[in-house]
């Protein structure tokens, strides 16, 4: 009896030990999240400082960092809100694909205009067992630093940013409000929203080229 349970406990322990390195323990998530956000910021700053890059290369590298850091899929579903509930899969996938291009065009491109160099993580707090809020200060030349809060989630052993909050304003809540308004005015049609997003992407690309 004792031997069996000893072996049982041993095998369970070994199994647990084998799984442990794949996910940060709950207690480690905030620290890991803080390091994660800092490393993303360092990459962005390095790209912006690299004068040898052409504008297109710089934007494309910034887009890579953005897509690596943010869970665009989950955010895309969230900002659709209740309107995504009854959408056929094809329409939903088309929307998600367009949404990904839209956020790269709007948010990743914004990194390009960031002229400052100071980014420091100030603290991390847990957000449930699989998440954390990372607080950071972003310095701007000649102005007070802004406090930016990053919501990080551990999704399938990878860390991803799922929201950004500045002065109480949440990126995804704002985006969801905007999409809710567009959908409300367009009979709840997600394909129509997708078309409007595509139009906006075209519009933005035209200006960026000029």
């Amino acid at each position, binding site marked *: 009896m004792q031997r069996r349970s000893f072996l049982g406990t041993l095998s369970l322990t070994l199994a647990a030990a084998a799984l442990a390195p794949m996910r940060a323990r709950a207690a480690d998530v905030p620290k890991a999240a803080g390091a994660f956000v800092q490393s993303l910021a360092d990459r962005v700053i390095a790209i912006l400082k690299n004068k040898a890059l052409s504008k297109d290369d710089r934007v494309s590298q910034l887009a890579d960092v953005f897509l690596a850091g943010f869970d665009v899929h989950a955010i895309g579903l969230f900002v*659709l809100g209740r309107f995504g509930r009854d959408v056929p899969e094809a329409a939903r996938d088309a929307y998600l694909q367009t949404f990904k291009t839209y956020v790269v065009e709007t948010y990743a491109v914004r990194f390009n*205009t960031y002229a400052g160099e100071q980014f420091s993580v100030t603290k991390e707090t847990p957000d449930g067992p699989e998440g954390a809020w990372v607080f950071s200060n972003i310095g701007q030349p000649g102005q007070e630093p802004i406090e930016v809060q990053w919501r990080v989630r551990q999704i399938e052993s990878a860390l991803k940013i799922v929201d950004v909050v500045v002065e*109480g304003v*949440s990126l995804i809540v704002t985006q969801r*409000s905007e999409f809710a308004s567009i959908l409300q005015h367009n009979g*709840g049609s997600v394909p129509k929203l997708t078309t409007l997003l595509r139009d906006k992407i075209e519009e933005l690309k035209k200006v960026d080229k000029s």
Partner: protein
Amino acid sequence: MSFRSSSARRLALALAATILASSALVGCATPPKDPNALAAYKEADDPLEPTNRTIFSANLAVDDAVVKPAAQAYHDIPEGLRHSFHNMLENARSPVLFANFVMQGRMDYAAETFVRFFYNTIAGFGGAFDVAGQTGLPMRDTDFGITLAKWGVTDGGPYLMLPLFGPSNPRDTVGLVVDNFLDPIGYFTTFGEDVGRMAAEGVDKREQVLGSLDEIRRTSVDFYATLRSLYRQHRADEINKGVPGSNVPAPSISEDEPPLGPMPAQSASAADASAPAK
């Protein structure tokens, strides 16, 4: 001592009353029938949306024609001069801030404002230099709308797009008018000087958001709705700042649970205010 400025106050009161009264009478949006759209309509808490959007277009036109160019010109003047001008405008608001902090029961902030005002006015050349800020007394901002919120008017009411003044709601519109009446400086200035000062404050504020507002306008499909959401969240943050326990977690968005999971039917101010306090 000139009381000609009382005409500015009467005008402000008349304007606010007109806006609030006509808000009640002017055509409201018809609530949609589709359940998803209806829920969105309720969350938006913007029954006057058609009128608000029209006023918004007018505001944007005025902004493009007058306010933005003025803000850009203001932005081009040397930074030191601009900061001095900004500090003087802020300093002039001290009496109103003091009164509001007292009404909110925040005697500590009221005392700080008092000290800042005298220190900056005397040692800071009429407020041109924020010497008090440099010694560790930061400026604390507030208004009568926040005072009303602290007194229990936590729901500001439906979204209102005011001509020139921009996003607001009934509670905060009342706040604007009351603050105007509370301001002692206005009792010593002419109507023209009052308007001039309001215009200067408008341009000063506009300059601070020059880049970011244009960026949001450029990338938004529905700029009106985006601004409405931004305004509401920011306003909730202004009201709740420093209040322990106001840390309302944002809706969860994990991959495993359905993204459209339990979506509480909150009012827009609550839905848009779901962000962590500092």
